[in-house]
């Protein structure tokens, strides 16, 4: 029979054993997260903060950075190329994202009707998403070629006008937007299709009993219930289109004609930082891009209550 003292001893022994185990668990946990946490700190968190600090300096990347306060911001506001990059990026985003989402919505609605060959269609629509953007840019530059390009040849067959897509400054940006839509539609189709397939069939059955038309069903069931996915597609789509670079870089090539009509904010970051070694002003542009993305995201979240339904 155990004495109370022995019992107590055993109990404290248990507690310290449990403590020891918790202690060990914590040590293991820190070991497991250490590589990732250290890596993210060095290559992501610290650079993000440093980018903010560098925005207020004049720095060529080699000698010591010199603090110039708001000098970079003032210089940028007075720089017509920078203003042009803001306008281009805004137009690019405002046109390409809704266009891509609307087309993707139509395609996924058609694919959602238990249509034959759904997997084949889905595969074909998705191919551009996995293709290297640099290669996409090269192929479309060739397709858009004014004299030898396939696009103008086909337009010619139908007696339609044959614009010089990329070399007409008025439509060059639109030409790249069309390529971007072509590239991104498949991704949106996959997301929207998953959203559509998540809508319970009982809603439609009930609506049919009430005698609702297909159009009514779309506006009163499908559209409200797909809004969470639409919201996600819009936010992620806008974030990535604000960052467009690869396509633009390839489309501009060595051409001076295309530089101004096509330059985007990220192109400006690249140009200032790595062509002219003006790291301070490049950081300022990058940081303004970050603020823009943050602002757009916050606005979208603020307005989501007005149109996104989370009760599905």
């Amino acid at each position: 029979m155990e004495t109370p003292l022995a019992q107590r001893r055993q109990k404290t022994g248990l507690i310290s054993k449990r403590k020891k185990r918790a202690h060990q668990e914590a040590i293991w946990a820190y070991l497991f997260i250490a590589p990732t946490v250290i890596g993210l700190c060095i290559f992501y968190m610290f650079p993000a903060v440093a980018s903010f600090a560098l925005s207020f300096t004049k720095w060529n990347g080699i000698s010591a950075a010199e603090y110039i306060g708001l000098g970079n911001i003032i210089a940028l506001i007075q720089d017509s190329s920078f203003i042009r990059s803001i306008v281009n990026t805004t137009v690019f985003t405002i046109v390409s994202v809704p266009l891509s989402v609307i087309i993707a919505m139509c395609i996924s609605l058609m694919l959602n009707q238990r249509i034959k060959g759904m997997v084949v269609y889905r595969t074909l629509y998705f191919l551009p998403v996995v293709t290297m953007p640099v290669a996409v840019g090269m192929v479309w530059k060739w397709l858009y070629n004014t004299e030898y390009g396939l696009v103008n040849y086909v337009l010619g067959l139908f007696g339609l006008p044959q614009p010089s897509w990329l070399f007409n400054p008025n439509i060059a940006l639109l030409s790249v937007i069309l390529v971007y839509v072509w590239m991104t539609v498949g991704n949106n189709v996959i997301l929207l299709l998953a959203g559509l397939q998540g809508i319970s069939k009982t809603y439609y059955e009930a609506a049919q009993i009430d005698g609702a038309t297909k159009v009514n069903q779309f506006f009163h069931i499908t559209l409200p219930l797909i809004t969470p996915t639409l919201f996600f597609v819009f936010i992620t789509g806008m974030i990535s289109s604000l960052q467009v670079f690869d396509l633009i870089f390839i489309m501009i090539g060595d051409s001076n004609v295309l530089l101004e009509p096509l330059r985007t904010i990220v192109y400006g970051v690249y140009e200032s930082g790595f062509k002219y070694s003006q790291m301070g002003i490049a950081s300022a542009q990058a940081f303004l891009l970050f603020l823009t993305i943050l602002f757009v995201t916050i606005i979208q979240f603020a307005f989501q209550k007005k149109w996104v339904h989370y009760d599905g």
Partner: protein
Amino acid sequence: MKIKVNNHILLIFGAFIMIIPFLWMVSTSLKSYGEAMQVPPTILPQEWKMSNYSSVFESVNFLKYYLNTIIVTLSRTLAQLFLCSLAAFAFARLRFPGKNIIFIAILSVLMVPPQVILIPNYAILTQLGWIDTFYALIVPGMFSAFGVFLLRQFFMGIPKELDEAATMDGCSLFGIYWKIILPNSTPALMALGIFTILASWNDFLWPLVMTNSADMRVLSVGIAAFQGQYATDYPLLMAGAVMSTIPMLIMFIFLQKHLITGIALQGVRR
């Protein structure tokens, strides 16, 4: 019935627009320079000029670009899968002080666009002497906040009873991670693996900035430079484009189920 037929017509028309640039890329890559510049264009090459492909290898060090891309992609992917899953396991299963704060800090990294960290990273890699080396292309790409988040969410869904049973049998913490968590997470690991392979194979701005010698070029930078050199030799350019994109297209066709589940998961989860 009528509606269904119309849908097919629209979908086929759309699919044509999606696929034609690829077919045109392949067709042009097999034409002679003269034939590519013909008006009206020939749909299929009159003489199949396979030699365009070998010409690409002769005019630039294409084999080296290929090798570099494979080395970078494989190392980044394997490292990310291991490091992210290890961290995700700790966040999903283990108790330790500061867990929530550290996790939120990691999530905050998701908001920072890659271009913002480009310039400070250029300075850091210069300091380390890593510019124009494999270290610059691989090491920063081994860490991923997105990967930790994706895997942690998946690990949370694995029943805890499995761990407890293993602990009873005297399994260590690393043993639980290795023998219980990883084998039960194939879909999430596959999705992250494919995302990383695609991102790293197709990446352009980072390798463009972080390397400068021809020997260190990856495919994306290589074919961009190639375009600069052979601006209008479209058959050669298209041959290069075909060869740079084919591995990803093949991977997608075989693994599309995993990729699509992964993408769909992200949208539904939020």
